[in-house]
């Protein structure tokens, strides 16, 4: 057997699978629709999160973070920390305010009397940091990185709402994965069941094929292709559904945005995620088919 005829045989199995899908157009369309809708849920949630994330990045543009150093930190240490931090990612601008400057500023602001009653300068050195435009999650990361430094005493955090949003988005990401996992399992089950019914409908053919020398591999192959094909079409449907949803939502978003003088639009799925969705659909269909075929064919022995 040459590689050519082997490939040909796989192609034959694929064609057979396609024919079986078309033999029962209604049942096939229904399965594909169910898979498509189920996959649309995590996909939609994912889109919601990425768009929220994108929107809020713009809003955190002008956040300033003030870092108060510990009182015992001297000027040289503070300056070298400022130098180190300047080279860190995520920081656009960094201004060093020495405790003397801070005191002067306070005195200028009219607290002269109070301050002169103190025997020493109670103020610490501070660093005022302007992060580069970033998502709430990135700001939160920066915030945490700063807090971990031994020289740092306290931080006026990135704005609370940004942190809450970041936490919410984290939760959303977790929820997406959870939803995706649960639905993935049910998809494998749907495919498995469709294929189980098919196997029973083709019982005669399977038994006769075995009598005249068909291997299990030969019998399995078209069913596996069927599962993969159904998974692929289902995830394609999910792509189309979510694409249509974004298109539809963007009409209202456009109206809303123009009232703010913005040209903001919701983003659709990027290429990576689309590819991931399609491959995921194929793998799920294949898994469901495999389990079902292995289990059902054993019943025939």
């Amino acid at each position, binding site marked *: 057997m040459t590689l050519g*005829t082997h490939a040909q045989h796989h192609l*034959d199995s694929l064609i057979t699978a396609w024919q079986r899908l078309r033999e029962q157009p209604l049942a096939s369309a229904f399965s594909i629709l169910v898979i498509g809708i189920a996959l649309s849920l995590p996909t939609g949630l994912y889109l919601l999160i990425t768009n929220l994330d994108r929107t809020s990045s713009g809003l955190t543009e002008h956040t300033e973070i003030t870092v108060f150093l510990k009182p015992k930190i001297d000027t040289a240490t503070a300056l070298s920390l400022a130098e180190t931090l300047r080279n860190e990612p995520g920081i656009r601008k960094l201004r060093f305010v020495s405790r003397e400057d801070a005191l002067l500023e306070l005195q200028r602001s009219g607290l002269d009397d109070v301050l002169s009653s103190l025997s020493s300068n109670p103020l610490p050195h501070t660093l005022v940091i302007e992060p580069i435009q970033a998502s709430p999650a990135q700001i939160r990361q920066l915030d945490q990185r700063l807090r971990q430094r031994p020289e740092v005493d306290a931080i006026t955090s990135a704005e609370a709402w940004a942190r809450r949003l970041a936490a919410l988005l984290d939760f959303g990401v977790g929820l997406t994965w959870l939803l995706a996992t649960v639905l993935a399992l049910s998809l494998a089950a749907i495919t498995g069941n469709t294929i189980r019914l098919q196997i029973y409908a083709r019982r005669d053919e399977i038994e*006769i094929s075995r*009598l*005249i*020398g068909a*291997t*299990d591999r*030969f019998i399995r192959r078209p069913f596996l292709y069927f599962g993969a094909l159904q998974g692929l079409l289902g995830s394609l449907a999910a792509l189309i559904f979510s694409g249509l949803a974004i298109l539809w939502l963007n009409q209202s978003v456009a109206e809303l945005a123009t009232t703010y003088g913005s040209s903001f639009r919701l983003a659709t799925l990027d290429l990576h995620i689309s590819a991931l969705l399609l491959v995921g659909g194929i793998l799920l269909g294949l898994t469901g088919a495999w389990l079902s075929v292995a289990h059902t064919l054993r019943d025939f022995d």
Partner: protein
Amino acid sequence: MIELIDVTKRYPGGHVAMANVSLYIPHGEMVFITGRSGAGKSTLLKLIGSLEKPTSGHIKIGNEDTSRLRRATLPYFRLNIGMIFQDHKLLYDRSVLDNVLLPLHIREISRTEATRRARAALEKVGLANRERSRPVTLSGGEQQRLCIARAIVGRPRLILADEPTANLDDDYAHEIMGILQALNESGDTILIATHDQDLIARYGKRRLTLANGNLS
């Protein structure tokens, strides 16, 4: 070469269809198996074709002890055998051509080559003009000939024919026998189970007679 050594077949339910049968058929022979209905003719062919396992005893085909074949290697063994089933075992929801293509697809023969060979086999049994039909639209004799086409299309070296002429008139019966004889002359081993005493008389080959699961 086919050798049965002390083979017994007890079906689930307890019926003994084959009792301590030993026989030897050299390679390239053509043998008739006769006996009354229920004597065990089909059972013998199924045992030789590994469609049934013996309850005890050994069956050797070539150098292979087929009573010991593992499930995974069974299909490869069956590929060497062309079986004409008494109950036809056709795919009734497929075309005549598809039925004959099946053994070739199982052998992973390329599509064009398979179609060419399937058509040649249909030609041989006189069904060339029915390749698009469904088997249910064929007469009993035509279905029989379709079975024969499917059994010979994979060019097996051993043909087990269970009542291959049962539904055929004389002319077709002799045509079928002509096909089987030609295969035999080209070296294939052929076992034919039949009631038809005339046929046996006419072809005058070795005959095994079964009665109640015993050779006589």
